[in-house]
């Protein structure tokens, strides 16, 4: 696959969760019924994404 950035940058950008990632995933984890702390639950709707072709 052709990456649009140098590989070391790709790895760096893929590795950490951004705040947005964290919020989105925590919200979904909540839907899985996994235990979350109170702060985790203060997340707005609307972070889902689509990869429709």
């Amino acid at each position: 696959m052709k990456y649009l950035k140098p590989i070391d940058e790709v790895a760096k950008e893929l590795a950490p969760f951004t705040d947005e990632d964290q919020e989105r995933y925590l919200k979904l984890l909540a839907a899985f019924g996994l235990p979350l702390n109170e702060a985790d639950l203060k997340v707005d709707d609307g972070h889902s994404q689509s990869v429709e072709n």
Partner: protein
Amino acid sequence: MSTMITLYHGTTNTRAHEIIQNGFDEIRIPRIDQVMLGKSKRRPGSLGYGLYGFQDDAGLATKFINKFTQNGMIVQFQVCLGFACVLNFVDSLTDMQLFSQWQADDRRQRLFKGLKQQYQNKVSQAELDGAMIEIYIVELLRHRLVERIDAVCSATHTVLANQPNSQRLPKGIEYAIRSNNRIQRMTIQIVKHGG
């Protein structure tokens, strides 16, 4: 640079004729939140969602469909793929390493724990792997690290009719095509039973 690849898709007699008459159905990739929550009607294949085919091996597709029906047929089709847009688990060490690093990150383990409640890697279909690939692709696209992903390919370990399941060595190469506009043309081959 694009390359034409020949793939073989095993399906039922009825479905094969529908494909020849009307073409393949539109390839639909469910929304990622539906995938993560296990709410998509369809389960992901081992390489995620898409149209699956074995590369250059009608026999493999025959053995695959013979597991399910004795009236199977094989649809041969060509896809035009630029390898810049293929997540390649066959011979791109970079693709494999990046995915492996992404998967191993401690911060995603809670996510994967949730995912494991929805999907399992079964002998017949590695749904969990497929769901992880879907999340990985979304992250690649969202971070704009790739332009697009038209297909995922990998060595296949799929279980075949009349073959022991204990083999860990791959049997061929399998593609999951994620975009209909990559499909060029189709022919149909009637499967000889036991072929």
